């Protein structure tokens, strides 16, 4: 009973029609409100994470593991381990999602109440860190799950657990690890955590009133974007509901939505699929430098078309539910430098980090005069921001190196640009522009090779 994957499983598209048809009727008659978004989100989340249609394929509950070791602790160990195993078979993703949502909601309500009384930074820092704790538990799971069975049951049980697919093997990096999200998390936790934290930051800065529970739930859990973004912002999301759209505006939204959904099919199911089949798969089996380079470019294009295709679906479907989900990509391979690249690639993530990490850090550092030079401040900000970006993908080596690489590239491209400006070395013409686009693309592609984990296997 694997959960449905949005915009991948055919069943998901079929089920999507059910909440969409009433949305269209409500939209055309100017009755589409946040209440309906909440209703549709509840229904789609249940279908997606619980997937009642997939029940027939569920496997048998695994039997007891051999539990060597001291007899005294045996019952405790046994209960701990068995509950961990059994939890996998009660739509665990849905359970985790509900527990997570309740936690983040209570955190927001508690913090908003404290914030009314004072603007002190301590409760704010505690709230933001607490909001990230569930994500940390999920992301660091592969690290401590290698150790946990050893502690609980000794090395032999760890091997059994690995064989059962409960514990990811240490050689497979990243999100594709089977069983990882099934065991302690749910698909989309990374993305919706950023939305929950966005609310906390806006509350702290006094930019919003405490959002109503319905608004908060529909913003954080908004089903078209729950699994992989784009990462919307509370103030932008709220602005969609300030006034009802006219019939003509809703028709324009549908028009754009249909276009984006068609684009999603083209990017994800045609272009990305064929790149995967005809380019990436053969390249991954080709040895040597030639295979590596082929994989590098193939993966870069694959990742773009797959993710931009997914984003197009998410944006297109959002339109039908009255939400103008922000764009995620803007011709990233035409970027002239790395700063330009991050204004074109995974825009909602990079702007979230720009506003909430980089600018906050640099502003604090400037006001408190932590560093003498504003460029040093900025460069430390780049490393911090991109380091967090890497870590956000997971604590695996490929993501951490990717984050560091992006930080260094941002610094290098800023440094070179300022150097060139001072000395007036290169003129700004068609040739130098084309050259910088070409160079940036190749360095970006190398970054994607790091990200893919292909270098680390």
């Amino acid at each position: 009973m694997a959960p449905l994957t949005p915009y991948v499983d055919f069943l998901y598209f079929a089920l999507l029609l059910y909440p969409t048809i009433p949305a269209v009727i409500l939209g055309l008659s100017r009755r589409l409100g946040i209440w309906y978004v909440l209703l549709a989100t509840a229904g789609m989340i249940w279908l997606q994470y619980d997937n009642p249609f997939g029940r027939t394929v569920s496997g048998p509950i695994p039997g007891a593991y051999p539990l060597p070791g001291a007899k005294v602790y045996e019952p405790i160990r046994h209960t701990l381990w068995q509950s961990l195993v059994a939890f996998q078979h009660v739509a665990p993703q849905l359970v985790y999602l509900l527990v997570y949502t309740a936690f983040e909601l209570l955190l927001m309500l508690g913090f908003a109440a404290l914030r009314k009384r004072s603007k002190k930074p301590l409760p704010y820092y505690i709230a933001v860190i607490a909001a990230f704790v569930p994500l940390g538990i999920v992301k660091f799971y592969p690290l401590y799950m290698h150790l946990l069975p050893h502690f609980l049951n000794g090395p032999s049980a760890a091997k059994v657990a690995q064989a059962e697919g409960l514990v990811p093997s240490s050689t497979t990096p990243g999100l594709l690890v089977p069983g990882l999200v099934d065991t302690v998390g749910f698909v989309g936790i990374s993305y919706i955590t950023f939305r929950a934290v966005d609310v906390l930051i806006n509350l702290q800065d006094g930019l919003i009133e405490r959002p109503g529970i319905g608004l908060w739930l529909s913003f954080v859990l908004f089903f078209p974007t729950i699994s992989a973004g784009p990462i919307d912002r509370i103030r932008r999301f709220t602005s969609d509901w300030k006034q009802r759209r006219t019939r003509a505006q809703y028709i324009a939204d549908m028009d754009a939505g249909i276009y984006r959904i068609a684009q999603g099919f083209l990017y994800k199911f045609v272009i990305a699929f064929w790149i995967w089949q005809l380019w990436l798969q053969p390249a991954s089996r080709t040895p040597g430098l030639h295979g590596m380079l082929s994989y590098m470019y193939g993966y870069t294009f694959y990742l773009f078309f797959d993710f931009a295709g997914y984003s197009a679906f998410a944006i297109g479907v959002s339109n039908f539910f009255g939400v103008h989900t922000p764009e995620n990509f803007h011709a990233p391979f035409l970027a002239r430098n790395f700063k330009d690249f991050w204004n074109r690639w995974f825009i909602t993530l990079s702007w979230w980090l720009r506003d909430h990490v980089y600018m906050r850090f640099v502003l604090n550092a400037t006001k408190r005069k932590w560093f003498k030079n504003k460029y040093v401040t900025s460069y430390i900000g780049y490393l911090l921001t991109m380091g967090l970006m890497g870590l956000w993908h997971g604590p695996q080596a490929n993501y951490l190196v990717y984050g560091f690489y992006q930080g260094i590239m941002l610094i290098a491209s800023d440094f070179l640009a300022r150097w060139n400006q001072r000395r007036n070395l290169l003129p700004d013409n068609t040739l130098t522009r084309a050259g910088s686009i070409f160079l940036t693309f190749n360095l970006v592609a190398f970054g994607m090779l790091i990200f893919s984990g292909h270098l680390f296997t």
Partner: protein
Amino acid sequence: MADVATEVLDILEGVAQSREVRRNMDLPLYQSGLLDSLATVTLMAAFAERFGLEISPAEFDQERWATPTKLIADIRERLAV
């Protein structure tokens, strides 16, 4: 109130390192590349020091500071509140 405009322009000229911001009040500051996020934060820190204005990076919106005229109008509005 004219003083605010002059002071904002002084700060802007220093941060953007361009005299053009004084001559052309409708110069697109971000599109022309004169301002970026680092320059924006430097401006925020300068406005905090000079006017005691606390501007949050979370409300950063290029549109509000798109030209010298818009920037001055925004700072005036913030000081008036």
